């Protein structure tokens, strides 16, 4: 390849990423700065002086602290449901041929990224009938199932990378399907599974409308709903909103740091070696 070509493609990449950065990072910075501002305005102009008072203020609320706890329970609960069910479903889809396999695959695919929004009202009705309305378990189940299709999809692709001969070797070596999953599939797909845990958690943590519609008690609200209802209700203190938003990002950041090496690994799977 000619040197100019390399330059052109590199420049294109940089432009794309600067563009991305521009739209994301400016608001990102604003949130961080505003959280420490003494003036609760909404513009980029006057932030006043540096202060931690916004953080003091939000943590004084018992419901805010509770909403972090609820958010963690619901997000991790939903993630656990998705991952555990996806492991079995992906193994079966990846390795077994059985009746109705294609129909089931199409069902899974159909619900991947399905506009769930349109189903929430009837789901609300249904939940009231089966007594799951306004319970953590109810939210966890819906969150788990919501992420299940895409989780199955990605995990199955990762299982597909495991050569058939390794699975056969495990069979010949005397491993049951269950042992094969535990001792072969899970360790080999671990980078992908780590990434899926991160993605599922983030999606659940950021999900606003599911708990908003399926919960009514304030003491069950996760942080996403708390921020919305609290600040959406009356005149907004933007510095407190920003501080809450920063707190809201922290679990994601922590998980992200832990999963970093798996993220890069998963991103590089099948990458060019030569």
């Amino acid at each position, binding site marked *: 390849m000619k040197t100019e070509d390399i330059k052109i493609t590199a420049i294109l990449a940089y432009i794309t990423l600067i563009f991305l950065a521009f739209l994301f990072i400016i608001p990102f910075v604003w949130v961080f700065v505003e959280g420490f501002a003494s003036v609760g305005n909404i513009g980029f102009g006057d932030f006043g002086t540096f202060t931690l008072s916004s953080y003091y203020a939000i943590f004084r609320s018992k419901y805010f602290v509770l909403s972090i706890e609820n958010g963690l329970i619901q997000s991790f609960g939903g993630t656990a449901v998705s991952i555990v069910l996806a492991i079995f479903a992906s193994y079966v889809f990846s390795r077994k041929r059985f009746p109705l396999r294609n129909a089931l695959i199409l069902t899974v695919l159909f619900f991947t990224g399905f506009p769930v929004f349109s189903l929430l009202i009837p789901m609300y009705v249904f939940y009231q009938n089966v007594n799951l309305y306004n319970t953590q378990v109810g939210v966890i189940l819906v969150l788990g199932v919501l992420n299940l299709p895409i989780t199955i999809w990605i995990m199955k692709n990762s299982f597909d990378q495991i050569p058939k001969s390794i699975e056969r*070797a495990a069979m010949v070596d005397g491993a049951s399907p269950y042992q094969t999953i535990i001792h072969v599939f899970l360790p*080999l797909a671990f980078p992908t599974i780590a990434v899926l845990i991160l993605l599922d958690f983030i999606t659940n943590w950021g999900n606003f409308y599911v708990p908003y519609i399926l919960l009514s008690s304030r003491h069950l609200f996760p942080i996403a709903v708390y921020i919305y209802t609290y600040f959406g209700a009356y005149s907004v203190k933007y510095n407190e909103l920003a501080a809450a938003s920063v707190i809201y990002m922290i679990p994601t950041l922590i998980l992200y740091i832990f999963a970093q090496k798996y993220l890069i690994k998963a991103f590089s799977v099948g990458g060019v070696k030569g």
Partner: protein
Amino acid sequence: MVSVKLVNINKKFSGTTVLKDMNLEVQDGEFFILLGASGSGKSTTLNIIAGLEKATSGDILFDDRIVNKMGPVQRGVAMVFQDYALYPHLTVRNNIAFPLKMRKASKEFIEKKVGEVSNVLGLEKYLDRYPRELSGGQAQRVSLGRALVRDPDIFLLDEPLSNLDAKIRSQIRVELKLIQENLGKTFIYVTHDQQEAMSLGDRIAILRHGKLEQVGSPMEVYKDPVNQYVAAFLGEPEINFFELTRNSNMYSSEEIILKGIEAEENEITAGIRPESIKLKKERDNDVEIKIKIQTFESFGSYSVIIGKARSGKEVRVRLAEIPEIKPSTEMAMYVPLDEIYLFGKDGNRIGKK
């Protein structure tokens, strides 16, 4: 110590027949080769013996015990795969130990067995390495180690050498042969490489389109092929074929004339192995063939002449010496009459010697 018998094995896979009425007997302690081109059903046969695939019909017997419904573990087979199939996340030590761990063997026992096996295969230095840190030859040895550690009755090997460099391949080939001779266990070995088959096998089974063509010792099938396919499959370079037509009391083509041949058909095919063609006439009834040299390949210890017969047909001649010849010259060469194979129109050998 186990013998294996396949009785009327058929295998269909979504409509197409992969194996057709396969009957096979592998003796106890034998190094048995399943030889065939890709798509011949050799790997399927191996998988059916292993218990990894199910036959559509027919019986598999281990020592006269029907094992159709048993899994690989119950059958007591170990397997070595073409791509080694090592567990990438486990060290060499844990790869070798894996089958014992699945059997919940004691720690001491595992340690002892892994030590023994790695000693036999010269893997002591690599026990703490991961598969990605091994060369192809080392990986193949680990894969063999994982089979050995279980003391299985039968070893099944699925083209275990075909991913290796040529150099290391012939080395491991010999190691494998010596290991089998020492263990005295039954080995069933799949390959597409006739050279591997010839050198390793006590007996060779040649498969084609899911059917057995011939079974016998390497020299048996080489010297006495039942049909054209087997004759062409064995030997390097490939045997030369000439189509002959009856012409009063002899058979002839543009290239050669055969006298004193007994056959019923009017059109027959003569097969002449490249090493049967000599530069000098040795006996009176030697068959003459005129060959125009095109090019030649010298391999150090032998050479191959690629030439054209009068008809334009490509002919190969294998010589133990390296001859001093120039391209484009025409030479008369000679073939002993009794080294010529004759085949009928259906490809079958006429009047087996």
